[in-house]
Every structure is written in structure tokens, then in C-alpha cells.
């Protein structure tokens, strides 16, 4: 295969190529392998990978009207490669960020020092829809609110930037592992030659993390994964994680609270539960505390939690820290709590709650991405350049009506990475979601779920909106290289 038709846009960072068209150092082996290979070989590899996903039904669930459909995320067979140094930068930056976010959560649910010191507006914290009054004064194990974090990282010509943090129920890690398994089997020789670091031990790290959070340091705790059920988009992942850590996969109806402790209905009777890795939203945890109309929750769960008899990861109320407005203050949090400069930059963000930002947003709608603070998954946002004038006008009205619900950011020229499309290599926009675990220590597997906008020119990488996945190869240090 040749790269003659590969489009190198000088305005966009290409993960694999320098502006002059030469492959970057860590892409050289892949580049050579692709040049040597015929398109037929890559087509066969791609077909095999996607067939194996279908055979194993590695899927996400998409609600279409009344019907829930199992969909397979299309996988591109060309891996995205990160050099050891690039990974170190991300690893340090993300660890720093999660440390600050946990300090922030701990602070706002105890004294609220950061608010008192005027670093972040009080109403932004208390008025955040994810702020939980019930969490005030609750002591969480090891002070860890967010034990599992999946931040979305993008790269532009200015380097890596954090686009958003996901602290509630970040998903994608199962696809990281599945993509690795499939792509590794397709590109065996290249994989071996590249000295790629493993990601398959994510389950072990997760188990260690959750074990460290067990109440009263109980050894060998009973851990469960709490899922909303089979209709949830990420059900496959919930099942995968339960299997990886040897936990029961429970729904709210399988749990009950008795005498301040949580139990699950087992075939041998009621079994005490120590740690809940929950993949349901706060609202559906405990109807007594959060949403009385919820059928999914466990009545009394928060009571048991406050007594310290069960750990919940991530802690209820963690969502304040991944709110799209609060996001703008994360660099300040890092300086405030850790006394350090942020290692990873934020994307410039305009908070429409500020009159000047609102004005700027409305004046520049055609060049901005506007997001609703409460939404995720790519829903409820406006991509200015791609919208019609009518769509922009309608959206502007919504922004004017409730400015505090919106933030805007410049349209980022997301980096592109070579993919195998229609029989030849072609660049597509990508993002990156690495996962950070925080228990007694910080843990990360060197890898990430890479989402790719498979449609030419598209910037939307969400799986629910036509995005695909890519395996991410983090390379080991070359011998002799500075560790």
C-alpha cells in the first residue's frame, strides 16, 4: 500500500507523520509494515477483526424507539501508537488531575475551602445538578471519591488537552481490551516487533483498587458491579468487568439493606456486600435519598454508605467534578490543592453564565462548539461550523434563555491518525480515553480507548453517532532510552 493519496493537512496534527510526510519515529515500523502489505491483506485483517467482534457480540446497546439493538463498534485495524515519552506525559498529567479532582470533591463536601477562598463560585458548586447534599460530611474510604476516571484527551498542534473528565460512570475500557485482543491477533509480527505494553491486566488493577476501598480495610471483600441492566448502552462492559474481577453483576433489585448493611440475594441466602462498583447514575442509587420514583435503586443504600458499612465507587456526588462548567476551573484546582502547575492543558472554555462569555459565544456561534452542561455522549451540543443558520438561531435562543446551562469551546482541529478506509490508508480524527484508577495508590494501564470519527472530515467520535474504535499501542522505552 502506498501513502501517495494520504492527505496531510498542515493545519492538523497528524499522529503518524511529520509535516514533511516522513513517518514519526514511533510510527516507522507500522508505516513500513503497511507499505509492504497489500490492501487485500489489510482488508482481510479488518474483516477478521470485525467478524470476531460480531461472533463474540462485543457490542453496545442502542435504543431505537422501543427496541434495544445490539450494535458492534466498528474497529479500525491500524493501531494508534504512542511513544513512551508521550505516554509518560499523559500519565503524569492525568494522575495529577485526578488527585486534584478528588481533593476538590473531598473539600466541597466538607468545608468548602475552595469556595470560601473565592477560587470557584459557590453557586456553581451548590447549584450543580450533580451536587449531592446527602454527601455533606460523609467520610469516604481513603478520601477517594472518584476511584475510576476516564478523561477524554485530544491533541491539536498545541499538544495534548483534556476535553472533559468523566467521573460518574466512564465507559470504554472493555473495548480497549477487546480492541487489543483483536488487533494483536491481526498484526502479530508487527506487534511483537514494536514492543507494545500490555493492557490486559486492567481487571487486576481495578480489583486491587476496589479492594483497597473496602470498609474497615476488610480483606477479601465481596465486590459487586451494579448495572442498570441489559438495556444499558454499556451492558457488555459491565458484564466484562464483573467477569474480570470475579464479581457478581447485580441490579438494584438484587440488593437490599438490612440493619445498616447491604446484602445481595444469593442462592445460599443473603450475602453481605462490601464494595459496589456502580455503573448507574446517582439518581438511581437510592430512592429514599435521591429519586423516589426510581425503580432501579436500593432503598436505604445511602444510609448503609454513611455508616461506612459499604463502599461505593465512584462516590455519589462525584459528578460535580466533571460538570462542564466546573471543568473550566480544574487548572485552578490543581494550583490550589497541589501547588503545582497543570501538566495537561484544558481546552479554552467560555462559560455562558458570565455575561462577557455569553456575548462572545452568541457572536461567534459559527466557530464554536456549544455544549449543555448536563449532557454527555455528544448529545445536546451544537457544532457551529456544521450547523445551518436556522439551527444556530434556534440554539442561540436556548442559550439566551438559560445561559448557565451552556459552555462553549473553540472547534478543535483534533489530530488525525491513519486508518484503513476503502482499501487504502486515510487520516481520520481521533480522541483518546485513558483510564486512571485511584485507591490507596494511583494505577493506570498503559493504553486507552481511542475513538475515531470514521466519516471523512467528521469530528464526532461518539460510538452512538457513527464513531469507531482503534487499538492504542503504548510503546515500551527503547533500550538505553531515559526511563
Amino acid at each position, binding site marked *: 500500500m502506498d501513502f501517495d493519496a494520504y492527505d496531510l493537512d498542515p493545519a492538523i496534527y497528524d499522529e503518524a507523520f511529520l509535516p514533511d510526510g516522513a513517518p514519526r519515529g514511533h510510527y516507522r515500523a507500522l508505516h513500513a509494515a503497511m507499505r509492504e502489505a497489500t490492501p487485500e491483506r489489510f482488508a482481510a485483517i479488518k474483516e477478521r477483526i470485525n467478524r470476531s467482534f460480531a461472533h463474540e457480540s462485543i457490542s453496545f446497546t442502542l435504543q431505537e424507539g422501543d427496541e434495544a439493538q445490539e450494535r458492534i463498534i466498528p474497529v479500525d485495524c491500524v493501531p494508534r501508537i504512542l511513544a513512551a515519552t508521550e505516554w509518560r506525559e499523559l500519565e503524569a498529567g492525568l494522575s495529577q488531575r485526578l488527585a486534584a479532582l478528588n481533593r476538590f470533591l473531598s473539600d466541597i463536601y466538607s468545608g468548602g475551602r475552595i469556595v470560601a477562598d473565592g477560587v470557584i463560585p459557590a453557586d456553581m458548586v451548590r447549584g450543580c445538578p450533580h451536587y449531592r447534599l446527602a454527601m455533606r460530611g460523609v467520610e469516604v474510604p481513603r478520601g477517594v471519591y472518584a476511584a475510576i476516571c476516564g478523561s477524554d484527551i485530544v491533541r491539536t498542534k498545541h499538544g495534548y488537552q483534556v476535553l472533559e473528565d468523566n467521573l460518574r460512570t466512564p465507559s470504554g475500557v472493555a473495548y480497549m481490551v477487546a480492541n487489543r485482543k483483536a488487533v494483536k491477533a491481526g498484526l502479530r509480527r508487527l506487534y511483537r516487533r514494536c514492543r507494545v505494553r500490555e493492557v490486559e491486566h486492567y481487571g487486576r488493577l481495578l480489583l486491587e483498587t476496589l479492594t483497597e476501598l473496602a470498609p474497615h480495610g476488610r480483606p477479601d471483600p465481596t465486590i459487586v458491579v451494579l448495572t442498570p441492566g*441489559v438495556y444499558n448502552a454499556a451492558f457488555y462492559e459491565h*458484564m466484562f468487568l464483573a467477569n474480570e474481577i470475579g464479581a457478581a*453483576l447485580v441490579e438494584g433489585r*438484587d440488593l437490599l439493606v438490612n440493619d445498616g448493611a447491604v*446484602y445481595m440475594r444469593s*442462592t445460599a441466602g443473603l450475602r*453481605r456486600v462490601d464494595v459496589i462498583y456502580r455503573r448507574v447514575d446517582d439518581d438511581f442509587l437510592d430512592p429514599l435519598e435521591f429519586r423516589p420514583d426510581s425503580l432501579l435503586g436500593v432503598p436505604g443504600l445511602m444510609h448503609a454508605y454513611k455508616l461506612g458499612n459499604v463502599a461505593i465507587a465512584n462516590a455519589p456526588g462525584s459528578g460535580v467534578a466533571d460538570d462542564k462548567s466546573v471543568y473550566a476551573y480544574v487548572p485552578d484546582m490543581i494550583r490550589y490543592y497541589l501547588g503545582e502547575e497543570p501538566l495537561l492543558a484544558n481546552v479554552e472554555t467560555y462559560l455562558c453564565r458570565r455575561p462577557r462569555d455569553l456575548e462572545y459565544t452568541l457572536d461567534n456561534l459559527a466557530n464554536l462548539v456549544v455544549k449543555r452542561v448536563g449532557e454527555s455522549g455528544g448529545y445536546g451540543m451544537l457544532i457551529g461550523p456544521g450547523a445551518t443558520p436556522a439551527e444556530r438561531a434556534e440554539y442561540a435562543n436556548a442559550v439566551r434563555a438559560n445561559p448557565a446551562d451552556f459552555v462553549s469551546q473553540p472547534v478543535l482541529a483534533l489530530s488525525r491518525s491513519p486508518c484503513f478506509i476503502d482499501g487504502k490508508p486515510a487520516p481520520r480524527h481521533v480522541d483518546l480515553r485513558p483510564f486512571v484508577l485511584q485507591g490507596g495508590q494511583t494505577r493506570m494501564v498503559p493504553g486507552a480507548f481511542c475513538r475515531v470519527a470514521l466519516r471523512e472530515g467528521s469530528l464526532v467520535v461518539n460510538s452512538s453517532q457513527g464513531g469507531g474504535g482503534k487499538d492504542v499501542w503504548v510503546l515500551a522505552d527503547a533500550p538505553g532510552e531515559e526511563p
Partner: protein
Amino acid sequence: MLARSAEGLYWVGRHLERAEHLCRLLWLQVEALVDRPVEEIHFGWRRIYRSLRRAPPGGREEFGGGDDYTLADSYTLADDLTFEPTNPDSLWSCFASGRENARQTRHCISGEMWTSLNLAWLRIGALDIKQIWGASPETFYAETAREIDAFCGVAEATMYRDEGWRFMRLGRCIERALLTVALLRAQLDAAAEEEDEAEWTSLLRAYHALEAYHRQHGLAIASGAVLDLLVTDALLPRSLRRSLKAAAAELAAIGPGPGIRASAEATRLAEKLCALAEYEWHQRERVAAAQAREATLLRELEGHSRRLHELTTLTYFEYGIEDAPLH
């Protein structure tokens, strides 16, 4: 293990056993369409529908005379029993339910089991009656039965022998017993007064038992001996006796459950069922109206088997939490 997961696995066993049972009956039935007399074909359909306690589409059990009718009707009936999604007993529905239960308990079974089941599902889900009828319906049913057998073989070879395994086996055994009793009752019900060898031969073939029968009883087919074999044989894999003994053994291996009263009753009932299929069945020859006794015994076996299912549910899955032990 989590009660709901155990229940899911129990139903994987039940649904797939049901799917396989139907496959075998339909296989015989489409084979009969090629060369058997019309009466025998009609008998076959009647037997299937009665055993499922379902009315054929259109509601009639009497089929039009003549070959053309028989073939046209058979197409409709086969569709109803194979692909009809609103028929909970259709092959498609049983397979879909079995696969859905497996999907929800995927973390409790081996990856190989899941892939083997999912592959079969992808194949079946892409077909319809027109396609299989146009090619070779025998091959379709044979392949599907083989895929379910393969799933069981993969399970045998790869699944950890924990409670999940036992519940899946228990579901299979209880379903097998229920299906066998229902089929035998339908056979007695639909069979001609004059004993017809073909009707009983096809029953044996549905259980892969024709050769075993010939070895034990010679070439002449007699209804009493056929029933004996299918009910009491110790070596026939699908005999009622073996199914019930296997169910009792799985229950014993799982041990008493948190639904204490149901648990005790289940143990007693499982033993009683084994005794019925093993000893009391043979005793029937001593009474004057042996045939009436057969019908009574089968009814009893069916009622008790159903109760065993209910007790299993009450013992392990839907027990009251008031008396349940805390661990």
C-alpha cells in the same frame, strides 16, 4: 452465586433443551414429508401440537386430505413452530430466550460457550422458513440440533463446575423430563386405537432409541415396550428416569437453599419422581387396566415435575428474605 444469575443459567438450560427437542421432532417431521403416508404426517403434527398444548395456526387439528394440502399445511405449521416470534414455543423463540439469558449471564459461563451459542444464533437469526424450505429443511434442523449439542459439548469441556454449571444442568434435566412426559402423553392421546408401528417407531427415533429398542426387544414394535424404554431405561440418555435422576443429583449437589420449606419439599419430591419412573412404572403391569395406569402415572409425573420447577424457584431464586440466612 447471585440468585438472579443462577436463575438465568437455569433458563439457559431449559430454553436450549426445549429448542433441541423441537429440532429433533421437526427434523423427523420434515423427513416424513418426503416419503411417509399422509396419515402418519398428520399424526406427527398432532403429536407435536398436543405436546406443546398449542393449537395449530387457524385453530384446526384436522388437516385437509391429499398430498398438496399436507405439504402446504406443513409449510405453515413448520413456520409456526420454527420462526414464529409470537409463538413462545417456536424454535426461534426458545433460542432467542436461551441466548438472551446467556447474554445476561455471560460472565458466569465460558467465553467459548458464549461464542458457540452466538454463532448459532447469528445463523438462525438470518434465516426464514422460505429459505430453509427452498433448500433442505432436514439439514437446517439437523444443523441446529448439532449446534445446540456442540454448545453442550463446549460447556462440558470448558465450564467451571460451580453452582452456575449445576443450575444450568438442573434446568436442562427438568425441561427434558417435562418435554418427555408431555410428548408421551400426547402420543397416547393422539395414537390410533389400533396400534400403529410407524407412530411408535417415529417416537423412538425422536429419542435416538430405535437401535437400542431393537437390541432389547427385537424387530416388533410394541407400544408398552417403547414406553418402558423411554421411561425407565437406565442407559438411554434422554429417558425419563435418567433425566429425573440427574435433576435429583444436581439438586443434592447444590444443597439446601434459603427457601427452607420449599427446599425440603424439593428434595422429597425429586426422590419421589425417581421412584415413580424407576419402580412404580414397572408395577403398572400388575394392575388390570395397565394402559389407564400409564396415563395416570404420566399425569402424575408431569404434575410433580412442574412442581419441582416451582420448588426450585422458591428454594433458590424467589425465596422470602425474612427467613433467609445472612452470610
